[in-house]
C-alpha cells in the first residue's frame, strides 16, 4: 500500500515536472516556429493575423521572392552579411590564435600592458566610441565599406577570443613543445602542426562566437553602412519593417527574420558543446 502510494506520488511529480517543462519549452520556442511557418504563407494570407500559425492555402515561397525586390534586395544583404561574418570569423581566429600563442609562450616588452589593454576594452562599450570610429574609418578610406565593418567586429571579438586562446595554449604541456623542438620544428611548424590541433576546441568556440556576433550586430552596421548596397541583413530588414520601402509587408518581414535566425539556430544546435564552453570560459572566472 505504502509502496503504491509513493509510486503514485513519484508519477505525479514526474507529470508535474514534464508538463512544466513542455509549457515553458513551448513559450520559448513558439515565436520562432511561428515566424518560420508564417513565412511560408502566400503573401495574401501573410498579411492577416497569424492564426493558425501554419499556411492554410498551401506552402509558398512568395514572401522570399518579394523580399528580393526591396531596396537592393535581400540577396545583396544576405551576401553582405555572409561576407562580413565569414571574414570576421577568419580574421578573429587568425589574430587571436597568434596573440593567444604570443601571450602564453613568450616574454617581451610591454607584454602585461598589452594584455591588460586588450582585456580592458571589454569594460568600455563600443556604443560610446562609435562616433570616432566613424571618423577613423573615413580617414582610412574605409567608410561605408564592409571591410571597415569587419575591422570593427574583429576588434570587438578580441578580448574574449584572446583570453580564450591564451588559456587554451596555457593548458598545453610544455613537454610537447620541447619534444617537437627536439624534432626540429620551427616556429611556424610548431604553431600550425603541433599546437593548433591541441587547441582546436578553443578555435571552434571563438569562431562560433565571432560568427554569431557579426551576423547579429545591428547598431554599428546601422551607423557605418550608408549605401543600401552595403546593408547587412539586420539593417536591411529594419529599413523594410519601418516602412522605408513603402507599406510594411509582414510576410516579407517573417521571411527575412527566418533568414536571419536559421543560421544561428543551426550553428548553435550543431555546436552546443562549444557554445556552453565559451559561456563558461567567458563568464565564470
Amino acid at each position, binding site marked *: 500500500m505504502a509502496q503504491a502510494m509513493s509510486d503514485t506520488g513519484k508519477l505525479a511529480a514526474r507529470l508535474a515536472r*514534464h508538463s512544466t*517543462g513542455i509549457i*515553458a*519549452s513551448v513559450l*520559448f*520556442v513558439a*515565436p*520562432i516556429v511561428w515566424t518560420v511557418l508564417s513565412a511560408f504563407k502566400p503573401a495574401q494570407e501573410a*498579411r*492577416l493575423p*497569424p*492564426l493558425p500559425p501554419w499556411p492554410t492555402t498551401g506552402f509558398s515561397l512568395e514572401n522570399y521572392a518579394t523580399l528580393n525586390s526591396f531596396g537592393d534586395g535581400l540577396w545583396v544583404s544576405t551576401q553582405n552579411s555572409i561576407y562580413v561574418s565569414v571574414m570576421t570569423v577568419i580574421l578573429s581566429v587568425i589574430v587571436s590564435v*597568434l*596573440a593567444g600563442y*604570443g601571450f*602564453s609562450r*613568450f*616574454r*617581451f616588452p610591454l*607584454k602585461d600592458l*598589452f594584455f*591588460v589593454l*586588450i582585456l580592458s576594452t571589454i569594460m*568600455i*562599450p*563600443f556604443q*560610446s*566610441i*562609435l*562616433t*570616432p570610429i566613424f*571618423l*577613423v574609418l573615413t580617414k582610412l578610406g574605409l567608410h561605408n565599406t564592409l571591410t571597415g565593418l569587419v575591422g570593427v567586429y574583429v*576588434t570587438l571579438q578580441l578580448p574574449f577570443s*584572446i*583570453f580564450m586562446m591564451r588559456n587554451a595554449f596555457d593548458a598545453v604541456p*610544455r613537454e610537447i*613543445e620541447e619534444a617537437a*623542438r627536439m624534432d626540429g620544428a620551427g*616556429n611556424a611548424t610548431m604553431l600550425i602542426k603541433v599546437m593548433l590541433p591541441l587547441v582546436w576546441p578553443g578555435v571552434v568556440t571563438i569562431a562560433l562566437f565571432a560568427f*554569431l556576433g557579426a551576423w*547579429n550586430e*545591428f547598431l554599428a552596421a546601422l*551607423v557605418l553602412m550608408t549605401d543600401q548596397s552595403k546593408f547587412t541583413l*539586420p539593417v536591411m530588414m*529594419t529599413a523594410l*519593417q519601418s516602412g522605408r520601402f513603402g507599406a510594411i509587408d509582414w510576410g516579407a518581414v517573417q521571411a*527575412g*527574420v527566418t533568414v*536571419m*535566425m536559421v543560421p*544561428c*539556430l543551426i550553428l*548553435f544546435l550543431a555546436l*552546443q558543446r562549444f*557554445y556552453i564552453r*565559451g*559561456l563558461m570560459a*567567458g*563568464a565564470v572566472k
Partner: protein
Amino acid sequence: MTTITATTAPPRARKLVGAGRRQWIGLLYVAPAVALVMVFFVIPLGMTAWMSLHNWPLMGEHSFIGLGNYWAILRDTRFWNALRFTGYYTVVVTIAIFAVAFPLAIFIERPRPFTNLYRTMFFMPAVVGFASASLLWSWLLNVDSGLFSPAAYDLGLIDKKFNLLATFQPAFWSIIAMVVWKVAGFTMIILMTGLQSIPQDLQEAAVIDGAGPFARFRAITLPLMRRTLALALILSVAGSILAFDQFYIILRGGPRNQTLTAVYWIFNQSFVSFKLGYGAALSMVLLVILVTLSLVQLWLLRKPEGLD
C-alpha cells in the same frame, strides 16, 4: 556580446623557452591584435574625449568650445529623461529576467530524463540576435497583422483591437516580455553552473539536519552562489544600460519619446542631428557611468566567498 569579466589567469609556468632574439618574436605574434585595438579602440576612445570639447558638425570646420557641450548636457532634459528611463528599464528587466531564469536554472540543474532537451529549448531565443528578436516581436505585437491584439479580439476578450505599442505602459511591458524571452535562457545557463558547483553532500547534510527547502535555499544555495549571482547581475545590468536595438526597432523611441534610452539619444544626436561633438560628450558621460559600475561590480566579484 561581451562575456568576459575576470582576468584571473591560471598559474602559469614562468620558465620560457629560448631567450634573446626570441623575445621579439612574441611581440610579432601579438602585434596584429594590438594594432587592431589601437586603431579601432584606443584612438577612438581618445578622440571621444577630444571631440567632446568641440563643436563638431559632420560637414565644415570644428571649433574648440571647452566644456560647452558638458554645460549643454546639464540643460538637456531629453538626455536626463533618457538616462532615467534607461535606469528604470535596467532595474525592471533585471528583476524580471532573474524571476524567470532562477526557477528555470533549478529546473534544469540536475541531469534527469529530457533535461538536456528542455535546456536547449529554453536557450534557443538566446542565440537569435537582438535585431532578429525585435523584428519578430514587432510583428507579433502589431495591432492588425500581429498575434496578440487580433487573437484577443477574435476570442472576444476585447471589443476593439488594442495597439500595445501606442501608450507607454503596454509598450514598456511588451519590451520587457520580449527581452525576458530572449535573455532568460542565457542567464539560466550561468545560474545553472553556480548551482552545479554547490557540493551535493552539503545539501544532503542539511536535509539530515532537518532543514526544509527554503531554509536550505537561504542558508546554502544563496550564499554559495554569490559570485555567480553577482556575475549574472553584471551581465544583465551592463547589457540593459546599453539597450538600443529593441527600442529602436520596435518602438522608435515612441510613444512620445518616452522610451528613448541613453544610447538611443546619443545615436540621435550623433547620427541623425550630426552633432558629433555633443554626441561625444554624451558618450563620455555614459562611459563614466558604465566604468564606475563595472569597477563596483568587479570589486563585488573579487570579494572572497563567505566574507561579508
